């Protein structure tokens, strides 16, 4: 049971999009045999949802973060691969441009992203620097009106399919030596590795992004030189709210499967694990409210670092626990590869890892409480 929030018209559009564009491809996406990520974003663009946070004057829907999390949760309830594709495109792929971009950058890129003509990616993580972004090695060397970027980014969602990446690269030393750049995939020197074979989220592409002497015009530096880490952390604060919404959707999808299975058992005169169902529902409901609260804080212009970390930690731990219970409650059918509970179980795990592992979320939360 849930009670809707957000704009009603947009809510109807989201429901229609999920029915028309996500439900038909969900099973194929889960097997890694669905449409490309870009095709999903194109479909969202056709429904007017590929720029849900982007102002209407730039071709977006002009929605709130409340609308955004509703969109991500609704998609994730049906298919988590599509949810992470859309979440990355909308949040860490687009929001830094909304928050830190100048008018020239916004006018060049926001419309394409918001209409779903282009897919956006976010490239922070490297092989040697996941949770420790300061250990970044990719560097950008200034040459006249351009920067030359060299390095490799790892575990990049959409790598190989995205058209525009927000890339963090070193322009100096330490945390203040990182800058953010808007890098088009068509530029010489940009290449991507073959998509990795993952445990779950098979419909979402994840891979290496290689930058080999890529000339990026200085006009494509996002924000002031040396503020890339600020851009990245700001994007992740809000991005974590999106991941929380994805986790809530996965948990709800798993719970849906468990409820269907439990009703069948009851109708067949078999015992039902009501205790497990209640705990799944309670945790999912709490995760949803934490996510809504964090989104409301973003919409109110408040700093959300702590509450986004809390939502991400709680919601993603919840989706893993709920999906695991769903596998138990749907046994033995859930042992099959394409059973809805099995798919959620595999998909859920990634949520505890990306956009900051839950160990990192605990560090963030503890720092707030225990720091001076």
């Amino acid at each position: 049971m849930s009670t809707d929030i957000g704009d009603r018209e947009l809510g109807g559009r989201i429901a229609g999009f999920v029915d028309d564009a996500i439900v038909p491809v969900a099973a194929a996406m889960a097997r890694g045999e669905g449409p490309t990520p870009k095709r999903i974003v194109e479909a969202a663009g056709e429904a007017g949802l590929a720029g849900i946070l982007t102002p209407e004057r730039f071709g977006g829907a002009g929605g709130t973060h409340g609308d955004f999390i509703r969109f991500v949760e609704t998609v994730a309830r049906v298919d988590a691969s599509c949810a992470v594709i859309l979440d990355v495109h909308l949040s860490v792929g687009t929001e830094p441009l909304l928050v830190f971009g100048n008018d020239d950058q916004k006018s060049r890129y926001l419309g394409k992203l918001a209409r779903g003509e282009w897919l956006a990616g976010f490239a922070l993580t490297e092989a040697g620097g996941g949770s420790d972004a300061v250990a970044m090695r990719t560097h950008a060397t200034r040459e006249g009106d351009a920067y030359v970027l060299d390095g490799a980014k790892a575990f990049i969602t959409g790598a190989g399919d995205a058209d525009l990446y927000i890339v963090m690269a070193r322009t100096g030393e330490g945390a203040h030596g990182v800058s953010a750049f808007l890098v088009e995939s068509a530029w010489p020197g940009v290449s991507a590795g073959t998509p990795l074979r993952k445990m779950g989220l098979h419909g979402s592409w994840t891979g290496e992004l290689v930058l080999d002497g890529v000339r990026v015009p200085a006009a494509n530096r996002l924000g002031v030189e040396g503020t890339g880490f600020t851009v990245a952390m700001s994007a992740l604060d809000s991005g974590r709210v999106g991941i929380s919404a994805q986790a809530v959707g996965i948990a709800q999808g798993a719970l849906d499967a468990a409820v269907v299975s439990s009703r069948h058992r009851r109708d067949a005169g078999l015992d039902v694990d009501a205790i497990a169902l209640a705990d799944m529902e309670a945790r999912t409901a709490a995760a949803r409210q934490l996510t809504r609260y964090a989104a409301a804080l973003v919409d109110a212009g408040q700093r959300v670092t702590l509450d986004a970390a809390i939502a991400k930690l709680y919601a993603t731990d919840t989706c893993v626990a709920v999906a695991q219970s769903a596998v138990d409650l749907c046994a033995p059918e859930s042992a099959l590869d394409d059973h809805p509970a099995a798919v959620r179980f595999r998909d859920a795990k990634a949520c505890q890892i990306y956009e900051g592992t839950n160990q990192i979320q605990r560090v963030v939360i503890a720092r707030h409480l225990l720091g001076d």
Partner: protein
Amino acid sequence: MDVRLNDEQTMIRDTVRDIARERIAPRAAEIDGTGDFPWDVVDLFRKHDLFALPFPPEYGGLSGSALTLNVAIEELAKVCATSALILVVQGLGGYPLMIAGTEEQKARLLPELASGAKLSAYALSEPGAGSDPAGMQTRAERHGDEYVITGSKLWITAGGVADTITVFAKTDPNERAKGVSAFVLEDAQHLKGFAANTIHGKLGIRGSNTAELQLDEVVVPAANRLGEEGDGFRIAMRVLDRSRPGVAAQALGIAQGALDYAVGYAKERKQFGKAIAEFQGIQFMVADMEAQTAAARAMVYWASQLIDDKSSDVGHFAAIAKLLAADTAMKVTTDAVQILGGYGYVNEYPVERMMRDAKITQIYEGTSQIQRIVIARDLLRG
């Protein structure tokens, strides 16, 4: 600023927080130690008009907002669960009237509860009817314009101090839920045939009055029956939908109080030459305690907001709020004792009291097991 609260709610929360810190926190250990009902806290609530919180303005209350009431309960419970319970039960005893009372009954009985001139209680459980209230044995027999009530009620919070007590009794002993009716006893402690025996030896909430009520042919005017004969069970369940978020708020406050204390301690306590807050083993415990407490708060506020919005989903989310907040209070207070180590285990520090106080929130107004049954039944019905 908490975006879930409006300006009035934020103001009341801050006011209650100050009262709790300055006036109640210094009394908490003593209240627990003596086990005496804290009449000074009742006077403090009267003076600051806190008893008005559960009631609407037309009956002498403030706003009647469940969210406003529950943020106040949370603040009180951070420092003293017993004191918070006094406000919880004033609401609990008043809800049957608010839900099912006639205009005349409400106008006659609610203002003195809203002012705190009279204390209230809610008498549903019996020795043999806890989670199964429809199995109650207490009888109410009609004689002309009166009912005569005979039976016993158990675990009644404030049962030995309350003036206005809603008692549930069978008007038709051949029926289960359909045979239950609700009655308001006025000036209960002085009624002929009424006896309250205070129960001693509780694990927690020791300053709270918990009583067994003996009703031996207690006479109640028919004008004090709530609703029709047979409406009692439905009223009792609607009251619990309304009151469970209040118990959840109490549990939430207990958890937050223990977390706050453990955080302060971890920053001060030095081992191996540094504050234990610098050890990741402590940091991760604290982070999980914070996340669980925040989740409980999210549900308490949401369930409260649904009450204020008159949503039909209240029962479901009230059960979830109660389940999550109570389990969280138990977990977080246990972890707080762990962070304080040996100091946590002795009553020189408050966290052992908080851990003892937490336990009752998993038991009263429906055990956590009953909440799960309520929640699962909703899911399977859909």
